[in-house]
């Protein structure tokens, strides 16, 4: 097990390195660099450009030097000092802008994953055990529709319906007074009364996919002789199903987190923009449209890291519940 974890950790570090490379490439893509943009905005505002500051910035980020040097200065700042650079639009260090929003992202996405599992498990098991029943057909149809509706379109429809039916606009994660309050039962309640909409939207596609996979896995397992044996030995139907086939069918499901998570992080960006959530998504969009590249690069990098770490956790979880992976091939 330790060897397995070690191997996975090394793979993760390499992946993170690749993520940082991609993020840096995106920072470098737009024409001009941070400094020229910075000077241009200062000049546009009529501010005096202080040559000493410019020179200090130039040295700090290595502008004008080779990409390799610039990358090294950028990544060493992140790794050694936790410094993601400056946001010229907000005139503040990137780190002060993103942590709170990233926390909200993780919170909403984490809750969406939990909801997906809680909903998909019973429905998937039911659909497999009662194959071709009305419930199974409903789950299948619902699954297809859930996969076909683009999440931002679903968010728009939800917004429209809640406005027409309840006269309320859904959006945000907190009421105006609650944004910066400390966590308390009142704030949790306020959060839940706002967060149900994004969580519903985000979990829809994933739930549909999980139901489909769980149903297929379980159908394969239910045909196997050990299930017949368990029945012949007089185990109750509930116990027969829950104790053996469901547990086996869950294994491949855990590994799906690996690709469920990128999709979730991805869709949360666009859903957050539609529903106006204080998460990393809208900040990313804004920083990209205003070419605030250090901020954008940091967000892309952190979202990538989030996904990689989530995948690692799901891999370890899978190794924990499935000995074949722990001790298996090499």
């Amino acid at each position: 097990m330790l060897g397995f974890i070690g191997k996975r950790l090394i793979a993760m570090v390499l992946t993170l390195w690749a993520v940082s490379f991609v993020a840096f490439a995106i920072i470098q893509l737009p024409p001009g660099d941070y400094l020229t943009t910075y000077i241009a905005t200062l000049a546009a505002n009529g501010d005096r450009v202080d040559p000493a500051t410019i020179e200090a910035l130039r040295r700090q980020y290595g502008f004008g030097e080779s990409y390799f040097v610039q990358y090294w200065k950028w990544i060493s700042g992140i790794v050694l000092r936790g410094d993601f650079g400056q946001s010229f639009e907000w005139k503040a260090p990137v780190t002060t802008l993103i942590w709170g929003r990233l926390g909200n992202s993780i919170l909403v996405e984490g809750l969406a994953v939990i909801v997906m599992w809680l909903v998909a498990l019973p429905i998937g098991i039911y659909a497999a055990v009662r194959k071709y029943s009305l419930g199974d057909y409903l789950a299948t149809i619902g699954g297809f529709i859930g996969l076909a509706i683009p999440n931002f379109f679903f968010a728009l429809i939800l917004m429209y319906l809640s406005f027409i039916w309840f006269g309320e606009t859904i959006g945000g994660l907190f009421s105006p007074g609650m944004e910066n309050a400390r966590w308390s039962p009142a704030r949790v309640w306020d959060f839940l009364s706002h967060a149900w909409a994004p969580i519903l939207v985000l979990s829809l596609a994933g739930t549909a996919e999980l139901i489909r996979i769980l149903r297929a896995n379980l159908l394969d397992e239910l045909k196997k002789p050990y299930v017949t044996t368990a029945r012949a030995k007089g185990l109750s139907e509930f116990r027969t199903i829950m104790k053996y086939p469901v547990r086996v069918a869950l294994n491949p499901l855990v590994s799906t987190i690996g690709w469920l998570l990128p999709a979730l992080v991805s869709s949360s960006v666009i859903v957050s923009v539609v529903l106006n959530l204080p998460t990393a998504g809208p900040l990313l969009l804004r920083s990209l449209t205003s070419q605030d590249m250090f901020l954008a690069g940091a967000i892309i990098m952190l979202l990538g890291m989030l996904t990689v770490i989530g995948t690692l956790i799901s891999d370890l979880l899978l190794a924990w519940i499935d000995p074949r992976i722990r001790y298996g091939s090499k």
Partner: protein
Amino acid sequence: MAVETMTDIPVAAPTTRARRESQTALMWRRFKRHKLALVSLWIVALFYLVAILAEFLAPHDPGAYSARYTYAPPQGLQLFSTDENGGWRFFPHVNGYSTEVDRQAMRRIFVVDPEIEIPVQFFAPSDPYLLAGFIPMSVKLMGVSEARAPFYILGADRLGRDLLSRLIHGTRISLSIGLAGVTLSLFFGIIIGGFAGYYGGWFDSAVMRVIEFIRSMPTIPLWLGLAAAMPKDWTALQTYFAITIILSLIGWTELARVVRGRFLSLRTEDFVTAAQLDGASDWRIITRHMVPSFMSHIIAAATLAIPGMILAETALSFLGLGLQAPIVSWGTLLQDAQNIRTLASAPWLLAPGVCVVIIILSMNFFGDGLRDAADPHGR
């Protein structure tokens, strides 16, 4: 039968062909059994037909605006008219508008007025235009004879532009960008996946690592980052191709994986070994022996990749970093529907989203059916 084909292969082939079914015919027979896939095929074909005939089907120019009819609600199209005696007659028409003043919001709103009937003419003469860019025409599917009468079957947007016409032209862009993106992805996927699968070794493992890495990244932030780097002064055509390239930068991975898997499993087949022993070149083995045997799979995989492309373009354009304003696509159309106040007063602006859902559902069913039909081991 088997002996006959074994003994005289090249000469007798034309005479026995009548009794044998080609690979395509077999696939088509299997595919037809899949009713949902068959219906989906027709829907997809219909959508592409709309995309091709956009200029003929759209009653208005997609950019033509009219300040008089901002946010005019959908008129619908009535084919029959009733008279006082309750009799019916065939009289295609749309109803006109009467204006009311919304006292609360203090603004003019339009109400469809059943009293006013504006006759609609099929194959109505119009200004000359080029169908699909090269066929000169001067007739449209529908039109109203009175030049200044409002004609908004699906309603109008903020600038009084006809939503139906914009939707039809948007269909052309959105569907073609899906097709172009998949074609480009297929090109990269076959070359890279083919090399990796056929030669294996270090190149194969390197490609697989890269694919795994790209697929473990959240796509929308990446796409946004790439799209944001497009210069703002690019022309419509340049952005169109740039977006296609950006989409296929990630899209090729899935197809490359499929191609590689097929190559790996076929590499050890007897007929490939036989061709190698006959001294055929690698190129000939790949193009004449291997590719034909899994082409149907690749086509099915490519079909299943199109919805993802369409969705991605819609999402990017919706967020304002994809195609830009003068180009009409489903994504840029949905951009108008982002605001809840707009949405509440003009819910018909959500129509492009309905199109997205329909095309994605039918493409998925169609692709699934194609995949099942292409599987020689299927029932």
